């Protein structure tokens, strides 16, 4: 079931625009999926019972979402952080090694491991982690200050390749092209496998709107 189907099921009587804005605002506040579903189901119950639209009964969706004062549950646990860091590390290593290996193979050369390459890889890994760790807070910033976010994003995209540039000639050693390419492919495949296992174990970062369960 996709997100829209879940929202349709939870609140079929509520105006689509109102409930989408409501869910988005609660996500930005950092409320968890089940808590959002609970709040939305209560709006549905009230609208169905009263025959009123959500806008008439509750006022503007964003104001109502804020008035609920739901707790920010968007902070990560150490285990979530470790799982995400592992997947990202494998991905960054795999993509960098795969690309470097493929280019070296095409040019019939060895892959040079420079300090610059390690710095660029480290910076891109740190930035990806930052995006995941900030999560909802970053999303909140994007909606509140889109222009500043655009400037920051452009700066980040520029910094990653440039960070290692001054050290590109500081070569630490070299690796054969074919095995480097193979290592890259294996690392990306491992990242995909770890992500799939995490998802199958029900520990993915997805936080769906779970309908409230009745006690009777």
């Amino acid at each position, binding site marked *: 079931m996709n997100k829209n189907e879940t929202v349709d099921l*939870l609140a079929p009587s509520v105006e689509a625009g109102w409930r989408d804005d409501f869910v988005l605002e609660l996500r930005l506040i950092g409320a968890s999926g089940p808590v959002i579903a*609970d*709040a939305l*189901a*209560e*709006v*549905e*119950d*009230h609208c*169905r*019972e*009263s025959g009123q639209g*959500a806008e008439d*009964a*509750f*006022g503007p969706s964003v*104001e*109502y979402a804020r*008035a*609920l*004062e*739901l707790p920010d549950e968007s902070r990560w646990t150490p285990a979530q952080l470790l799982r995400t860091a592992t997947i990202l590390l494998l991905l960054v290593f795999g993509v960098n090694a795969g690309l470097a290996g493929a280019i070296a193979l095409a040019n019939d050369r060895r892959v040079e491991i420079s300090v610059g390459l390690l710095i660029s890889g480290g910076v891109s890994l740190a930035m990806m982690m930052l995006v995941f760790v900030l999560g909802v807070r970053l999303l909140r910033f994007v909606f509140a200050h889109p222009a500043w976010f655009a400037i920051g994003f452009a700066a980040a995209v520029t910094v990653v390749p440039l960070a290692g540039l001054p050290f590109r000639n500081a070569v630490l050693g070299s690796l054969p092209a074919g095995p480097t390419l193979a290592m890259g492919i294996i690392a990306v495949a491992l990242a995909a496998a770890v992500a799939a296992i995490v998802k199958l174990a029900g520990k993915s970062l997805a936080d769906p709107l779970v*309908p*409230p*369960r*009745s*006690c*009777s």
Partner: protein
Amino acid sequence: MLRVLKDRPAHGYVIAAELERLGLGALGGGTLYPILGRLHRDGLLTAEWTAGDGGPGRKVYALTDVGVQELDVQAERWRRFARITSGIASPVAGQAGEQR
């Protein structure tokens, strides 16, 4: 709200309808549910979903023991407030009462 729930557990719309019937005016969902949420978080109410007839269920609120105690405290405060304000609003009647 605590007083309405003292009689029996109820869901949000019933609470709003009862408050209106008692003469407190129409209470919008935007005011009602945030208050119910706070009372629930403060431990004065329980909130449980009950199954609906074929459709989505409804969230029924009920007073906890702490809620009953809080209702008693608040009711006594309101009675005192009402006595004081009645005396201020009708000083003659208040003085006549004191002379008797």
